[in-house]
Structures are given as C-alpha cells and as structure tokens.
C-alpha cells in the first residue's frame, strides 16, 4: 500500500501532496461560503430594516464612533497584511518571519477586540443596547427624568426591568437546561449595575459621539433599539469570529515554533490565513454599513 513518494505529511488516503493541498483548499473555500451565508442572514436583516426604517439607522449610527471604527478597519487590514506575509514566510520556510507575522496578527486582533471593548462598554454605560434593554433617553436635562412614570420608563426602572428579565430568563433557561447561553448572559446583566450610578442622559464627560447625538436634531424613532440589536448581533458574531481566529492563529503559532511548517507543508497556515482574510472582508462591509450611514 505504501507509495514510494508518499511524504509523511500526506495522509494515507491521498495519492500525493497536490491532491491533498487542493482538497484542503477547496474544503476551506466551501467552509468560507458557509460563513458568508451565515453573515448573509444578518446582512439581509440589516438591508430589510434599513430599507423600511432608514430613520432608525440615521439615528442610531450617531452613537457609534466613526474614528474608532476606522481605526479598527485599519487594524484589521494591517492584520490581513501580516497574515498574508506570514503565509509567504511559511511557503519560503522563513520560520522567524512566520512567527513574527503571526504574533503581529494576533496583536492586531487583540487591538481590535480592545477597541471593541471600549465601544461596547460605552454602550452598556449609556444604555444604548439591543432590544428591550435599550434605555437611552434624549432628555436634555440629564439625570432628571424618571419622575414621570407615565412616559417611557425611567432609567432606573428600565435597568431594574432589564435585570429582572435577564435573571428570570436565566432561571427559566437554566431550568431548561442550557448552560452556555446563560453563562454569556451573566456578563451584560452584571454590568447593568453600572448604569444607574452613571449619568443617565447627556453629560459633559460622555464620549464625543454622545454629545453629537444629543446635539443632533433627530427625534428618537420608536424602533431605535433595532439598530442596536442589529449592531450588537453583527459586530458580536464578527467578534466571536475574531476570537476563534486568535485561537487558530495561536495554535499554528505554537506548531510553527516547533518547526511544523516549511515549504513542503504549510497548508494550516494557508487555511487559517484564508479564514482570517474572510473575517477582515466581512468587517470591510460592516464598517460602512454600521458606522457611515448616510
């Protein structure tokens, strides 16, 4: 059964390394198509709500920081460059360059996540959250509202509501036996505690985009929360992909440190590279769609 030219990295069921390489690449491309289809669902939701409720996008996008978004775009583009360079290094058996490039790529990925963290916490802080956790008020008097309970519910009430809902939902779902989803839920609900302490409306210490928003003359649309639902789900799923990307890059980093890749066998680096470029590619669309709404 053994073929005379069957190198160790070629699996038994393949005839030769070209067959194996082509198979792996095609498999990866097919997988990337499934990734595109997954995001397609979200883009579809975006397009439909954007078409029919443009006002919520015009209103909501003011809360996003264009500069931070652009910075993140540049960071991801840089990481794509380092990744492509890393693949080249692997192809040419340049171990040191490969390790450097992978490390740089991971660094960029972490940078991206850190900036995302700041963006998210600003939103958590101001209650510009998804769905029924959206509690942002366009109240110019800052911190005063909540007295008139008949109007939209006050910040404190809303936060209490949201907490109650999330905890009850957790209890229900825990009884329903899911654990992973609940674990992820625990984070935002505990951070809700921040909100009542902080200023609930417009204040001078708020980041730039908040001032912009308050200064803006748009009335708040009824479905404004949908923008943030779409924003969080799209960037959240993208963020999860970034995290998975970091794990993959770290894995090949460890393997390449052990000298696993060289010009005869570098397929994993190539495949992780493809995945990482796709993550970048999706962000290339997310950035203008969410941050640069005209």
């Amino acid at each position, binding site marked *: 059964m053994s073929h005379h030219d069957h190198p160790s990295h070629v699996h038994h069921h393949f005839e030769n390394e*070209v067959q194996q*390489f*082509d198979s792996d*690449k*095609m498999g990866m*491309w097919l997988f*990337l*198509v499934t990734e*595109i*289809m997954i995001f*397609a669902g979200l883009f*579809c939701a975006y*397009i*439909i709500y954007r*078409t*029919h409720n443009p006002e919520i996008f015009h209103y909501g996008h003011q809360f996003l920081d*264009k500069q931070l978004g*652009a910075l993140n775009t*540049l960071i991801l*583009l*840089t990481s*794509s*460059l380092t*990744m*492509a*360079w890393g*693949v*080249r290094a692997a*192809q*040419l*058996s340049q171990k040191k360059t490969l390790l450097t490039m992978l490390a740089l790529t991971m660094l960029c990925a972490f940078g991206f996540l850190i900036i995302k963290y700041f963006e998210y916490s600003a939103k958590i802080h101001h209650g510009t959250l998804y769905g*029924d956790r959206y509690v942002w008020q366009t109240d110019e008097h800052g911190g005063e509202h909540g007295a008139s309970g008949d*109007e*939209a519910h006050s910040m404190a009430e809303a936060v209490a509501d949201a907490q*109650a*809902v999330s905890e*009850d*939902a957790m*209890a*229900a779902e*825990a*009884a329903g036996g899911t654990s992973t989803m609940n674990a992820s839920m625990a984070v935002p609900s505990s951070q809700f505690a921040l909100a009542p302490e902080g200023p609930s409306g417009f204040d001078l210490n708020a980041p730039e985009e908040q001032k912009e928003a308050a200064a803006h003359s748009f009335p708040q*649309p*009824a*479905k404004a929360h949908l923008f943030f639902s779409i924003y969080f789900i799209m960037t959240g799923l993208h963020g999860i992909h970034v995290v998975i990307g970091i794990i993959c890059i770290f894995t090949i980093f460890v393997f390449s440190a052990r000298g696993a890749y060289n*010009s*005869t066998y*570098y397929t994993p680096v*190539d495949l992780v590279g*493809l995945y990482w*470029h796709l993550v*970048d*590619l999706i962000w*290339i*669309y997310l*950035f*203008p769609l969410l941050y*640069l*709404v*005209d």
Partner: protein
Amino acid sequence: MSNKSHHHEPGHPTVGHVSPLPQLFMVFGALVALTILTVALSGKLPGASGMMIAMGIATVKALLVALYFMHLRYDRPFNGYIFLAGILFVAVFFGFASLDTATYRRDILPYEADKLGAAGGSEEAMYEEPRKAYQNAHQGKSLHTSEAGEEQPAAESEDAGAAAH
C-alpha cells in the same frame, strides 16, 4: 494555476503561489487609501448615492483582499467559482426577501398609524403595551399557578427554577 509549477528551487513550495512582498504592500496601501476615502466621503454625498459609493468602495476592497491576500487570482478557478456561487445565493436570498418585505409594507404602515393614533401620537407609548405584555409573558414564571402540576407536568421543572429564583 501555479500549483502545477514545478520549479523545485530549494525553499520554494511545490504547491501554491508565493505572493511577492511588493505586491502585498501595494495591495495594503490601496486598502488603506480606500478606507480613508470612504471615511472622508461619508456624510458628504447626498441621499442614497453615499451608500452606493461606500458599498462600491467596500466591494473593491473585498475584491483586493480576495484576489491577492486570499490568492484567488492564482488559485484553481473552481475555488473562485465557489466564492461567486456563494455570493449569487446571497443575492437570491436578499432579492426575494427584500422584495417581499417591500411589498407587504403597505399592510404594516396603516397598522402602525392606527396604533400610533391610539397611543396618542407617542411612538414610545405605542410599543409600551406589547413590550410590557411580552416582557411579563416571557418571565420565568409559569402561566399556570396553583394547578400547574396537574395540568402541565412538563412545566414543573421550570416552575421549580422560577420558584427558586
């Protein structure tokens, strides 16, 4: 089709295409320039054209990434077809779903107008009632209280969870 290339120079791969460094840098430069262009143009163009241009630029960037960083230009053409087929199905999905939502919109608008009228013109009040009802319905408590056990044996575990809470 360079995977079939047979230049067995030492240190050169037998499969795959090696991108020259200047090319990578040029592509990167173009990507950065296009990003800056998008940001610069945002808010400056009237109406829908801004969005169109932003999407056009994004597509050029995506193509650059796909063709050069992802080596699609030098890859087996079939992998490119896979990619294009994916985009095509996305288009089918978007096309039909948006066409439908756009046409049944006329059933939603009068409803929202009616509800808005009923809520005294306040958009917030309009969603207040369904929102509250939904939040309450969704809380972990069982719909059935005293007789839940007899009528819904399956709900017991959840009752227990809610009660513990």
